[in-house]
């Protein structure tokens, strides 16, 4: 806690620009000058790093990410883990232009204390000696708590042909993870750390990024015909003696800096409140600019209401060309990449969906700045939850992604089905390092399951409570790198305040099962039974007299009704069961869901006709909703319709074959 306080103490003393107080502690700031050689696809740059030791520790070394070395050869950890493929596209190993790398040609402290010769590659995650994505730099003198350190770095970066997020394709450049980037020195107490430590993981196939806040001032030199978009605000634009343009951008309170350049971009400028909106779009996609902008502004409106207004002065949306689509769907502070193709139907809202998703990352990866690698669910999962809420809110539930009259898909249901459709949903829990997910479980668990978990939580505690949870979490933790436990503490606090002990002492039971556990949730309405029973026999005391039952007249037939539910999964959730009777009446029963089976019995003149488990669809984590209902009078209209249509299709299939082959 002491160290957190130390970290927070930087806020009032950080650099104040334009008369506004800094939003974040400026722990790692960069002043970078870089030149892009568009013939060789090489960046030559100089960076001045200004780092403040945020901890109470004396730090004797620095650690840097050299992300671009992930593309240096097929033996890097990134390439080995991904099988040299990313999002279905394989790296062309025989093409020398496929590869990218970064070299530090000089690293020194002011006063010419050289550090270059002390640089060592380390592999803290897997010990892969061929991986060069992290370096360790011992310092001649340690940095004392709260003290600043300046480091000058000269570097050369060869951009790869776009494979994963970064690189070039033709004359399109997406320049990301391109400079030597300092790891995060986490003080004791931060994100559950017992003591201070460098958090600087290798670049993995599934991992994304984590960095300290700072001010980025970046000047890039490149040919004049290129149109450029970047993190931050352009503060200067001049031509140099070589007739190249020199553009300078400034970005404050951000954790990264990315930029794009292409002579083919159409640039559309717009505004959302005081925020400048820049859309860098392909000429053949300009007809879709309205869609991009509407989606972006809708997301900005929604987040402003749900969390807080977007705090940065600008946002840039990049629409990559078809041949550079591998750069699409990526998030950086104040800078996102989306993606579409020419002729994308209005009713297919993939450009909208990706725009909203990537913009949302600005809140989770960018402002809360959670660790995308170690706790991907806090970024991808929460962001997917918001993405679906916004999509369904703006474009309509159950039709926000695909919206055709006879085929429509909503975003929230798509999230859920992404998880429930896994071959093995027990394969892992969502709360693990992103590179430790086995067999492709990363996407389904850290995006889809985590989002579905939050939807289920919302359904359990109610929308107002969930809104309060998210708002409290955001306001308390923005610009502070929260961990998973920090979020759960907020959940427990707000739920307890609003609902007392209705859900138990806290909500840990929920997170233990679905976040930290890998069990599945599946309740099944196993049977509904109705049995006619004989009137009772024997003798009963009525008013002190012994009366035989046969002397009591029963005007109606009597039935014994039973509803039996089975819990097929390990996860326990509280449930409601709605039971309908033949006289039109119904009852709703509550079950805590804990036992392996549960039974409802009713004796009387009414007959049960159907029962529905979780009738309001609250428990979205239930893997199979088809078994959540049971009727004694099934209606087969739908499958009869399918059978009739299948016959029609088969008849035509045989017929077409006859025409062309016989």
């Amino acid at each position, binding site marked *: 806690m002491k160290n957190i306080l130390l970290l927070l103490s930087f806020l009032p003393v950080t650099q104040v620009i334009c008369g506004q107080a800094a939003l974040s502690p400026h722990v790692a700031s960069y002043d970078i000058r870089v030149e892009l050689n568009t013939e060789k696809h090489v960046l030559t740059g100089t960076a001045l790093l200004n780092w403040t030791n945020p901890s109470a520790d004396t730090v004797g070394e620095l650690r840097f990410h050299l992300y671009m070395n992930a593309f240096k050869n097929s033996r890097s950890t990134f390439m080995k883990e991904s099988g040299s493929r990313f999002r279905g596209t394989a790296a062309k190993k025989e093409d020398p232009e496929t590869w990218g790398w970064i070299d530090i040609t000089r690293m020194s402290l002011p006063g010419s204390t050289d550090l270059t010769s002390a640089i060592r590659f380390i592999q803290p995650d897997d010990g892969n000696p061929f991986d060069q994505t992290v370096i360790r730099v011992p310092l001649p003198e340690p940095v004392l708590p709260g003290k600043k350190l300046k480091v000058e770095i000269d570097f050369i970066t060869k951009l790869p042909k776009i494979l994963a997020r970064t690189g070039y394709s033709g004359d399109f450049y997406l320049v990301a993870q391109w400079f030597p980037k300092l790891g995060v020195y986490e003080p004791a107490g931060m994100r559950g750390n017992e003591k201070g430590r460098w958090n600087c993981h290798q670049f993995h196939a599934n991992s994304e990024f984590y960095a300290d806040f700072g001010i980025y001032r970046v000047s890039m030199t490149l040919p004049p015909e290129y149109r450029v978009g970047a993190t931050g605000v352009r503060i200067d634009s001049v031509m140099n003696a070589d007739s190249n343009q020199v553009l300078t951008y400034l970005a404050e309170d951000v954790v990264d800096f990315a930029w794009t350049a292409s002579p083919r971009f159409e640039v559309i400028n717009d505004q959302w409140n005081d925020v400048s909106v820049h859309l860098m779009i392909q000429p053949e996609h300009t007809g879709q600019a309205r869609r991009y902008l509407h989606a972006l502004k809708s997301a900005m409106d929604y987040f402003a209401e749900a969390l807080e207004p977007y705090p940065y002065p600008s946002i840039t949306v990049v629409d990559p060309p078809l041949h550079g689509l591998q750069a699409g769907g990526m998030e950086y502070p104040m800078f996102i990449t989306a993606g579409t193709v020419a002729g994308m139907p209005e009713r297919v809202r993939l450009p909208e969906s990706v725009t909203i998703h990537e913009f949302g990352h600005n809140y989770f990866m960018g402002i809360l700045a959670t660790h995308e690698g170690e706790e991907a669910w806090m970024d991808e999962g929460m962001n997917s939850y918001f993405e679906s809420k916004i999509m369904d809110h703006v474009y309509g539930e159950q039709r926000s992604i695909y919206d055709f009259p006879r085929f429509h898909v909503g975003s929230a249901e798509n999230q859920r089905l992404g998880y429930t459709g896994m071959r093995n949903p027990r394969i892992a829990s969502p709360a693990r390092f992103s590179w430790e997910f086995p067999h492709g479980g990363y996407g389904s668990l850290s995006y889809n399951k985590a989002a579905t978990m939050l939807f289920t939580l919302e359904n359990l505690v109610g929308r107002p409570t969930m809104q309060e949870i998210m708002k409290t979490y955001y306001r308390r933790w923005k610009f502070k790198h929260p961990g998973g436990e920090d979020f759960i503490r907020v959940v427990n606090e707000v739920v307890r305040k609003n609902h007392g002990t209705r859900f138990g002492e806290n909500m840990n039971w929920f997170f233990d099962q679905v976040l930290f556990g890998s069990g599945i949730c599946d309740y099944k309405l196993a049977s509904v039974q109705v049995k006619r029973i004989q009137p009772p026999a024997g003798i009963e005391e009525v008013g002190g007299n012994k009366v035989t039952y046969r002397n009591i007249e029963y005007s109606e037939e009597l039935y014994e009704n039973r509803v039996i539910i089975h819990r097929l999964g390990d996860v326990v959730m509280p449930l409601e069961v709605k039971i309908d009777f033949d006289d039109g009446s119904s009852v709703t029963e509550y079950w805590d869901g804990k036992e392996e089976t549960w039974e409802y019995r009713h004796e009387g003149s009414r007959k049960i006709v159907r029962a529905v488990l979780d009738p309001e669809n609250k428990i979205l984590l239930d893997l*199979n909703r088809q078994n959540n209902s049971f009727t004694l009078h099934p209606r087969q209209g739908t499958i009869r319709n399918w059978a009739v249509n299948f016959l029609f299709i088969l008849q035509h299939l045989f017929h077409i074959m*006859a025409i062309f082959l016989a």
Partner: protein
Amino acid sequence: MHIIKNYLRGARFSIRSWQLVTLLYLVHTLLGLVMVLPFYSAMKDTIGPSMALENFHESFQYTAWTEFTRNFSQKMQVFVGIIGYALLFSLFVQVFLKGGILAMIREDYARFTLKRFAEACGTWFMRFLQVSLIVLLLHLVLAFLIWLPASLILQHQFTHTFTGQSLFRTVLITLILHFMLGSLLFLFGEYTRYTLFLSDKTGVFRAFRKAVVLVLNKIYLVYPLFLLLLVNGILLSLVWFFLQKATGFGTGLTLLLLFLLQQAVFWLRNMLRLWLTASQFYLYSEFPNPLIS
């Protein structure tokens, strides 16, 4: 004039041949039912007493549909496997029927009898099967010859200055090229059968060569007739599209109406096929020297 005359003659024949049309309809329907009945039973078994699909006819529900198809997928795999065999079996049946169809067309308005039809089917089965296999093989070769260079062009362009619009254009041009050459192959195969049938010979390859020469020489007659007959199918499809839209997702009585409409449309489609075959056969019979010696 050749085209219109034979187009109308073929139409007259197909309208009068309702028995033959009905026979073709029944054969296809029987083949379909062999697949559909166990399919329906398996679907019924999968959904069981669940109410998940009860309101599906009122509005499409992606979740219900996806969960049903997932639960049904294992059984579905069996059907997907069977469909391949069913199509193969159907091919043999179709080839078998062809001889009978041509015999009826040659006799023009003569009365349809099942015996004469079956005899003709048996007589021509092996020769027509050879023609079908040759055409099938050529279709595969054609697909390879068209799509291999097309994919190389796409791949090359994709990594250079490619845009979505040029991707669309390249794929569209390739599809049109494939359709045009594929329809030519279809015509070669069809007219090979006529050559064999009219000559009453066994030399399949010689007949194929003859048909290719004749079709190419008379392409200005053959291809417009083919396109004219294609228009019939497109018009029928449009009529069906609007009818189906009006019917909606049927259950109960509307499903019965849908079923009757579908079957009527399919019956008409068989009639169109007969129209197509008869028109082409009559046209070919008028070509100079359509026989092989």
